[in-house]
């Protein structure tokens, strides 16, 4: 049997809760075992918005950890074009290259992966 592929879905914005950070930990761990991809939906896309300055809040800027994904072999990183548009964002505003998919393609993505974990 071929190794199962994991899709990690990030839905929460950063800093308001630990969800995104613990979700990213799960992606990094998953990449040590099998093929993994990340999908940013809704406010999840804000996790990788550029230029997060967390000093005054005394929070941790874990967005930079996303830059290590390629080193971990995680190269399939997606988001929803509609969710970008709703937030007046483009992929240029993000700290790493992300494939923006039309809504119709997101459901097909769910088909490609064997396990879907949402954070």
């Amino acid at each position: 049997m071929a190794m199962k592929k994991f899709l990690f879905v990030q839905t929460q914005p950063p800093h308001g809760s630990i969800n995104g950070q613990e979700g990213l930990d799960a992606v990094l761990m998953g990449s040590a075992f099998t093929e993994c991809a990340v999908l940013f939906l809704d406010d999840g896309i804000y996790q990788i918005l550029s230029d997060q300055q967390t000093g005054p809040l005394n929070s941790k800027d874990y967005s930079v950890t996303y830059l290590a994904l390629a080193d971990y072999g995680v190269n399939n990183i997606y988001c929803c074009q509609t969710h970008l548009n709703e937030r007046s964002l483009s992929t240029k505003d993000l700290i790493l290259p992300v494939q923006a998919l039309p809504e119709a393609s997101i459901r097909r993505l769910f088909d490609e992966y064997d396990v879907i974990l949402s954070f």
Partner: protein
Amino acid sequence: MKFAIAVFGAPYSSQASLSALHFAQAVTLAKHELYRVFFYHDGVLNGNNLMVPPQDELNLQNAWVEFAATSKSELVVCIASALRRGMLNAEETRRYEKTASSLDPAFIISGLGQLIDAGLQADRLVTFN
């Protein structure tokens, strides 16, 4: 069929724990195998053996321990989530020189790899968030 369950919510504050418990009981009732219950995020708080809910409310930590004892299922809490939330077993209490431990011994502290392993080994991984 081989099931695994992931629990992300705190007892009481979220219903995730109660839903997962009902689901876990139904899994074993149907004679399926329950490979592992993995507690992540605030889910690790389910292992707190100091909780004293009112008499007329379910003690969720006790309920999980009883369930594990009768079903022979494994209860695993993520170590990183547990440390951040102060859910330590005796070994971690010693390691970090803390004053006490609050994680019930029926819960195993292990790495996040056990969540990935559950997804790989089980036929179905069902999340209660």
